């Protein structure tokens, strides 16, 4: 279930990356950022937040244990 939710959010993020609604928008945000740049700069922040959540809630704990077991064995 958790993996499906992550996949759905990932696909939504990939779709949001296309921001076709900003294509011809030349407005300036905060006095110096064109909308097309401000949106994608914000998108980078959202990506960082998304990956922070993934690490918090979907970290592969067992994988590290499994890797270290192999090293111990060798």
């Amino acid at each position: 279930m958790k993996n499906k939710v992550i996949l759905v959010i990932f696909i939504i993020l990939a779709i949001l990356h296309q921001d076709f609604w900003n294509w011809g928008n030349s407005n300036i945000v905060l006095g110096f950022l064109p909308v097309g740049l401000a949106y994608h700069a914000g998108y980078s922040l959202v990506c960082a937040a998304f990956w922070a959540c993934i690490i918090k809630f979907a970290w592969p704990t067992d994988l590290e244990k499994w890797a270290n077991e192999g090293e111990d064995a060798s």
Partner: protein
Amino acid sequence: MISILAQAPDAGPVSLTPLIVIGCYLALLLGLAMFSGKLFRGTSKDYFVASHSIGPFMLLMSVFGTTMTAFALVGSTGKTFQIGVGTYGLMASSSGLIHAACFFLIGIRVWAIAKRHGYVTQIQFFRGRFESSGIGYLLFPILVLLVIPYLLIGVIGSYRVIGPMTAGMFPNVFEATGGSVPPWIIGIVICGVVLAYIFAGGSRAAAWANTFQTIVFMAMGVLAFTLISKHFGGLEAAIKQANGGHLIRTPDEISIAGKFTREIGIHPLTFATYMFIPLSVGMFPHLFQHWLTAKSAKSFKLTVIAHPLCILIVWVPCVLIGLWATGTEAGMPPLPDAKVGAVLSIMIAKLVASPVIIGMVTAGILAAIMSSLDSQFLCLGTMFTNDIVLHNKPKDKYSDKKTILIARGFIIAIVLVTFILSLLLQNVQNVFDLAIWSFSGFGALTALVFTSLYWKGATKHGAYACIIVVASIWMFFFWKSGWGGEYTVGHVMPVAIAFMGGLIAMIVVSLFTKKPSEETIKKFFP
């Protein structure tokens, strides 16, 4: 795509200061890397993967530094000057999602499997996963051929940065080059410095050097941004004078000083399919090796989260400089598309005009170049030693010392080949377009690594089919592009077609061929 940081010709005698600043930077880099070499434990495992001892911060810096080439500083500015604001979404924000996904989904899993089974190269992993020695012999030349253009871009890039910057500095010594340092000396110095620290400490020295280089090029990008914005009278004034057509992504054609026309903006389909390019980090052999240096899986946490933020810090200032350069007050000369890589340097030289700053920004560009070069040289040496020389040989055939010696020997050979090729190809105009083709090849091959990690049903024959289909599609479009030019298939990036072709070939062939043994499934699927 590489800049020309020349001093203003009317500034009197040409100052040696920029070259001295670069010399100081190279000396610092070498000193730091040599110090890290003292930590070298003398084993082949330490040489190839730093004994899995690299912590979170150094892993972030070395992975980020390796994925960002000179394109991050000068290419981003130039591309924005050429096509407009869409550059950030096209190349940067998509990487925030896709690169981090590759680190999380591929990097951590590969690290775990490699650590458990003692792999030090990508090919060892594929040989084990697909129970096939032959797959290594198929992949090795493909990976080497895809890495070589990437290496050439770095070395030729250094010629195109330092050569013009030193123009007129030594009129009596280098008459043939107009007083600038000739490419062969630049190549010897750059390759020599990289070679020296790879020799000293292998992966560990590369990680230390990359950390330093990444900090330098990030800082220099921000420095250039601050100084240039001051010249315009602040951020708001700078963006106000930018050309309106570059602030949007609608495709258009504009006239440049009545001399030629330029296509600006970007087609939505190209924008969408460009998202396949950052998948290349999933298959870069040099990045694979960096992953294996991680101390623990937890070391990846910072890399996954902070990578999009590091991209933001480097790319937003560079894209803004590119937009400002399109304005009336920037006073840019009419640059054709092939010369847009000079935008950052022209802005610095005209608007900041300080030899110290020119030297520092050039050092930043070199840092971006060298932080990729070292990992690529090292990974080719590692692959040759482990995948060709040591493969199928008894474990005690070569001592650790002899293994390291073989790796060092192959690295020297690769550096020599790269150096000679770079001198032969230094004047080829479209050499930097090759970067996109190199990324496209690796990006399309990511279908192979992803299915091998997440689909138990992926078979040896499926893997062969995937590699052959990707290589064939890639080669066909490479030929159609005129061997390396810009090319799309009805606005679709060729990498998207090659990736999908490889994925379909893997799935279809795997469904009808012999499944991997239970033992292999247990070995690769925890």
